[in-house]
């Protein structure tokens, strides 16, 4: 799994939560690193923050949808909570959108569900 967030707290706790659930996680601090990680090895799921330096989460999502692996499920994890932000995320092709502050337990449930649907 790929987790991209410029906030070290969030990055570490999502990585920890997903690792505890048995997933192999690669956590990166910005959009460009996320895109590079995706290109080198497409993950089963990508969890992307929206506001990141360089490429934003939305930019990465667009690139994923235009890539050779457009069906990789993407969950946006963002503090941008306005309806228009959520609309934008889904319009670009997000499979789910979780607003910060978030429940790590709920995030795990959503990731599990997304993964179950793709299998």
């Amino acid at each position, binding site marked *: 799994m790929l987790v991209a967030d410029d906030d070290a707290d969030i990055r570490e706790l*999502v990585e920890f939560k997903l690792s505890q659930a048995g997933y192999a996680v690669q956590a990166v601090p910005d959009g460009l690193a996320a895109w590079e990680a995706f290109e080198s090895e497409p993950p089963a799921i990508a969890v992307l923050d929206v506001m990141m330096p360089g490429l934003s989460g939305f930019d990465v999502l667009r690139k994923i949808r235009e890539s050779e692996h457009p069906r990789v499920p993407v969950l946006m994890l963002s503090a941008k909570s306005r309806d228009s932000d959520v609309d934008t995320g889904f319009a670009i092709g997000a499979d789910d959108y979780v607003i910060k502050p978030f429940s*790590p337990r709920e995030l795990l449930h959503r990731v599990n569900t997304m993964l179950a649907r793709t299998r």
Partner: protein
Amino acid sequence: MISWSSILAATLGVLLVCVALAGVVAAIRIRRHSREARRSRLMAPFRPHLVAVSAGEDPGGDSRRVLADVAGPARRALAESVSGMLGKVRGLPAEQLVEVLASHGALGRAVEDLGHRSPVRRAQAAQLLGLSRDPAAVDPLVGALGDHAAEVRASAAYALGLIGDPRAAGPLLHAVGAPGGGLPAGLAADALLSMGVGISDSLVHGLVDPDPRTRTVTAHLCGAGSFTRALPLLRDLVALDPDLTVRETCATALGRIGRAEDAEVLTRHTQVEHPQPLRRVCAAALGELGDPSAVPTLAALTHDPDPRLAELAASTLVRLGPQGRAALAAGGALRPVRSAMTMARLQGVLP
């Protein structure tokens, strides 16, 4: 005539100021960086425990016990890290992080810090109390709504919104119109909306508050939160409030949550004897309300000399379904009607 020497001296002076400013900026950055580095160093042994608690992966409470036992300089660093984490997670992990802070006495200190001489400390204390979501913090935070520093008042309002206890609704509404600089209306409205239906009584009182800013925010909340108990007062205020903004906000709220009988109130206030801004708001609100009894009045308004009002009336007719569109078709040659129909086609409302 300005001499070369005075130009040189002025240039040197400006350069010196620039160098000094750059030095100050660099010093601030270095200080911030070293503080961050020190905090990371102090926190390093406890970081895995903080992450475990924040992730909700501390079922036995071992990590919480380690964090509760932190002492010395690391305790302050931990309090900062826990506060930072509290703004990012919710649910059980947030509750457990608050337990850690409480075990260090940080919440009690935050209440004391609301009286600190530094407004930054007071604002931080208010924020921490809000993040704790502890109902016991409501009273001290209500007190902070009267702080002379705007940032502290704003932090207190935000914190009260996080706690979501409707007991704070009345004081929040009152603080919007407080003399000597109240609360920003948007901030108060956000905080109040997060308190749920329990604010209903306070809204009824807020509509008769002496301050028009409080009445405006209250009227907005009545519409945004569908507080239909306020309908009788909203109707009265559209007609009688001495403040035009309050009347407009009440009309908008009536459009959102009103009943069929409110079409008459709104229609009456689109008439020429009322202020132009109110007439426009009422015309738009009739579209929100969606009652077709307004069609004849709106059709007449498409002839109004105020082009904005005429266009709003035409757009509202489009939204009122077949009856409204039939009335529009009858006035098809009018410029506002043509423009409203073009807009409706562009938006895909009309074929």
